[in-house]
Each structure stands twice: as structure tokens, then as C-alpha cells.
């Protein structure tokens, strides 16, 4: 079944699909019709490939946000043989934007952590469209620490526009909670596999993203700031979000080039939203392969590998250069020049 929601650049694909279903609906197809069904099918495959090979960064954002794109709960249904959900952060509540629980992946028992944006309006309101509060990050860490206690590997699926920017979130220490997760995830002596399955929005994504391996799906993105946020600050208007998206270089190819991710997991033809099952199969195969590679490592080896993975990220020059001469600063610069 083709998706309900249409992205602007998907129009030619939908037109061909309409054509195809019309042809196929004929009760007594003549050989001529069968022949045209065949050509339209071929054309459709070619069109999907052409459209999805040439997506720019802003188009990728749209695919990553596609309302029918598979989410954490879809993947849990499709790839886990068993899932026992665990709720609550023992301090404030149970954040629905991060789902946590025991899961079985083939023969492997893991702790499954995943951000959920919600599929229905009710679900979306419950989990704030995938924007977690501090209690969500606290819950995730609590379950991860428990997994570490019993030697269970951890799988984290990242899919969030960002951590929730609200009064309650600030009151309950959004910044502190994310910071604490970064530090404590660096200390868990079990394999951690992180995959960005949709949106990797800034600190909200990194808060469950300190993994031994970090991967992204082909049409996912992982960014320091949302394209809208960046456009609002640097271009002074959100309407330039497409420009910001291209400037931020946050899609798979660039993430590989900067050494941020280990692999880009291919999506089925036409994007994950067109074939949940095929996407889930690819994702599962990747996770299981990465698990197999990490499981033989000892705790200290895992910690060292994870440390070095993040330690080496960063680009700078390190040469002795001429000293920078400072202009005589005006009073404005030294005293009040850059108040908020």
C-alpha cells in the first residue's frame, strides 16, 4: 500500500502509481495492457530511484519527518521477538517520548531504548511529538544502568526534533539531565548501539547517543540544531530553513565524511515510509551484525573504544602562528557589547 501523505517531490511517483493501479484494476487485461503494466512498473522503479538519489538536505529532512515513517514502536513490533516495556524514572514520571524495555533480537537479549514521536494525534500529544523531558532522559539512563548491571547490551533508536523546550523541562533541569546522561553513558561497560532512525535533533538526540557504534538511516539526519532554529538565528527568518539545512551538512554522506557515524543503513526504494518491513529487516541485520562485533569485547575495551570514538572527533589546526593582534576595543565591546 502506498502512503497517504505525499511529499512534493514524490508527485511523479504517485502519478505513476495511480496509472498502474488503474491498469491493474481491469478485469480482463489484454496482452497490450499487460505489456503497459510491465513498462509502468519499470518506469516506477526507475522514477523512485531517480527522485530519491537526488534529494538535497532539505528534502531529506522532509523524508525524515514523514508522518508514516516507521518509529520506535513499529520497529519493536517488526524486529523484536519479545518486548517487555519498563516505565518510569522513579523521580517524576513516565515520559512517553522515550520508550524503554527488555527486548529479544534473534538470540540476543538487549535493553531497547527508543524515542517515539507518536503515530496518532493522541499519541503525539502524549509524547510531545517526540520531544523528551528530563524525566525521559532520566528513565533512559536508569534502564541503561540496569542493563549494565546484568551485562545486557543496549540499543538506542534516536528520533527526535530535539529535547522539549518548555518551562517545566527547564525547571526540572533539562540541561543537567542531558549532561549527566552524556557522562554516565560514557561509563557503561556494555555494548551500546545507537541508530538515528529519523530526526537526530541536537542535544535531545545525543542524550541517548553515546554509543560504541553510531549509525544513521539513509534519509535520516543528525544535526547540532534544527534547520528552522538555525535559519531563525543566522538568517533571521525560519523561511530560510532549506538554506540552513544545506549549510549544516547533516545527512548520511557528510556524517560519514566527518567521522560522526560508522555506517549509513540503506532504506528501501522510495524511503522507509514505503516499506516498513524491508526497512526493519535492514535495520535488524545491521544491529545484529554490530552486536556480534562488539560482544566479544571486554568491559574496559568497550569503554576505551567508545571514548576514542568521540575523542577523535573535531577539526582544527595546530601550528604555531603569528600572534593575533587585537584591535583597540571600544567600550561597547569590552563591557556591554554582547549582552543577550
Amino acid at each position: 500500500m502506498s502512503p497517504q501523505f505525499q511529499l512534493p517531490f514524490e508527485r511523479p511517483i504517485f502519478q505513476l502509481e495511480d496509472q498502474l493501479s488503474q491498469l491493474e484494476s481491469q478485469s480482463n487485461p489484454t496482452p497490450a495492457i499487460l505489456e503497459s503494466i510491465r513498462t509502468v512498473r519499470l518506469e516506477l522503479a526507475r522514477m523512485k530511484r531517480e527522485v530519491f538519489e537526488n534529494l538535497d538536505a532539505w528534502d531529506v529532512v522532509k523524508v525524515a519527518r514523514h508522518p508514516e515513517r516507521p518509529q520506535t514502536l513499529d520497529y519493536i513490533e517488526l524486529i523484536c521477538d519479545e518486548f517487555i516495556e519498563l516505565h518510569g524514572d522513579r523521580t517524576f514520571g513516565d515520559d512517553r517520548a522515550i520508550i524503554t524495555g527488555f527486548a529479544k533480537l534473534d538470540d540476543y537479549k538487549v535493553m531497547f531504548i527508543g524515542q517515539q514521536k507518536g503515530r496518532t494525534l493522541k499519541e503525539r500529544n502524549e509524547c510531545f511529538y517526540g520531544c523528551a523531558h528530563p524525566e525521559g532522559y532520566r528513565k533512559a539512563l536508569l534502564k541503561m544502568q540496569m542493563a549494565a548491571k546484568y551485562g545486557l547490551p543496549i540499543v538506542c533508536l534516536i528520533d527526535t526534533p530535539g529535547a522539549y523546550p518548555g518551562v517545566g523541562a527547564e525547571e526540572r533541569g533539562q540541561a543537567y539531565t542531558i549532561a549527566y546522561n552524556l557522562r554516565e553513558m560514557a561509563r557503561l561497560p556494555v555494548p551500546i548501539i545507537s541508530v538515528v532512525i529519523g530526526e537526530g535533533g541536537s542535544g535531545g538526540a545525543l542524550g541517548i547517543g553515546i554509543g560504541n557504534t553510531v549509525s544513521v538511516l539513509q534519509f535520516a539526519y543528525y544535526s547540532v540544531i534544527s534547520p528552522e532554529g538555525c535559519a531563525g538565528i543566522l538568517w533571521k527568518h525560519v523561511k530560510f530553513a532549506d538554506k540552513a539545512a544545506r549549510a549544516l551538512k547533516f545527512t548520511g554522506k557528510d556524517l560519514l565524511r566527518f567521522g560522526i557515524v560508522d555506517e549509513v543503513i540503506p532504506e528501501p526504494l522510495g524511503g522507509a515510509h514505503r516499506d516498513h518491513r524491508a526497512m526493519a529487516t535492514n535495520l535488524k541485520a545491521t544491529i545484529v551484525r554490530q552486536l556480534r562485533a562488539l560482544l566479544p569485547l571486554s568491559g574496559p575495551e568497550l569503554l576505551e573504544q567508545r571514548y576514542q570514538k568521540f575523542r577523535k572527533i573535531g577539526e582544527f589546526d595546530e601550528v604555531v602562528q603569528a600572534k593575533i593582534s587585537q584591535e583597540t576595543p571600544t567600550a561597547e565591546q569590552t563591557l556591554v557589547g554582547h549582552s543577550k
Partner: protein
Amino acid sequence: MSTGAPLDAITSNGQMRPKRGVPDGLWIQCESCKATVFRKQVEKNFHLCPECDHHFYVPTAERIAQLLDEDSFEEWFSELNPKDVLGFVDSRPYHERLKAEQKKTGMRDACTVGRGYMRGRPLVFATTDSAFIMGSMGSVVGEKLTRAVEKATELKLPLVIVSGSGGGARMHEGIVSLMQMGKVSAALARYHEAGGLFISVLTNPTMGGVAASFASLGDITIAEPKALIGFAGPRVVKATCKIELPDDFQTSEFLLKHGFVDRIVSRPQLKQELVRIIDYCSKSW
């Protein structure tokens, strides 16, 4: 306050000429109480407003002079220079912006790290300076801080980081900036496990990715009065929640009330407070 002289005086022949009067920069207006105060007096007074104790911005060199013993600071890794990883262009190319900021501040990037003494106690000291692209964290800031933390672990020294970063993770270096949060935090995890004492001092402003990484990870967290500290910018929060924000929202006092800051310390007392705390925790190694 303006940098150029206003053209509001008319000479006898009817032409505009720059207004004479107070030389530029001698007087400044306090952002908080709006009093016009003598600049020298503010500078002598720890960059505090003599009328209302408003904490003005302090440049890195003066911060070091205020907190560390005279001439005791030995700067480390000063040769690190930022790079335009993404080829980022907004209103101007990032590499040009870097040059302009370097010229304006005399620093290579927003962060300064090194070893110094505080009333004779050796420690590793780092600051981020909000004058340089809002003190935001890109590769250089992340790398310098990570190295400083690693050095502190190796030398078994206390660590004091004074944060002044309104920008969080630096957008111009994209995802590489975001990963610096993970990198510094991982280094702090090792320092923490080794038993090191980390005192984080939050100054106006400490926001976004900086607040959500090293700045929040102190064993002790101290804030200067009325500093802006938080995760999301107040404008974003207002746009999301569509409610009036509390008056003290995201200030040091707000964080103290909600349990995320140990103490609010005024700048003239900061050095002696830090020394006292270090003395309490001196047996940690």
C-alpha cells in the same frame, strides 16, 4: 551608547559636525539599573555596577587576573586554531567571521585553558569567553577542554571551568560541534572516576549545548548572580509554551530554587569561595 559621535550639533555655517562632549567610552550605562556609571570605576570593582551590583561581562584575561594568583597562569594549547569544517556560509563565510572575531577579541577561539594557582593551590583552569561567537563550543573549544580535563586527571589537580557561553554548541561547525559535548563529557567521566574535583562556575550566559554538557557536570556548581542559564533559549520556550515566563526564568536564582546550583556567589567573593571549597575536597585523590 554609540560608538560613533552623533551628528546632532549644527555649526554656525549650518553644517552638521560631530557633537563634542564626553569622550567615547568613559561612561557606560548599566544594563540593569540604567544608571550612567564611570567605566573605570566599574572595571576596578570586578566589573560590577557600583549602583546595583549588576555583573558586567569580564574578558578572559581579567577573569584570570581576578581568580588566579598574580602571574601564576601558564596557558596550554594556545596554538589550536579553528577551521571551517563545513564551508559554512550564512550572511558571511564562517572563515571570515572567525578572522573578524579573532581580530576583535585577540583570541584564537572562545576557550582558554591552562594551569594556575589560587592562593597557592595548584589547579587546572579553563574559561569560555562570550565575546567570541557567543562563547559557543566548536572543535577548538571541545578539544582544549578535553585536553585540559585529561591533563587534570593525569596531574591529579582540581579543575575549575568558568563558562560564559550563550551560544551552546557552535552552529557554524554543525554536527562536529554537537559531538564535542560528548567528547568533553566522556573526559569528565574519567576525571570523575579518578576522583578529581571539578568546580563549574556559571556566568552570564550559559546556555544550550554548553549547559547540557560540561557546565552542568561540576561536583560543585556555582553561579554568578542573575546570570542567564538554561537549555533552550527563552524566546524558543515562550514560542513553544505560549505563556508568560516567570520573571526569574532561567536565572541563577531560578536554578538555585529548583536545585541545580549549589551556591550563588558574587564576583568579589568568588576566589575565596573557590579556595574554601577546594580545601574541603583536597583529600579526593
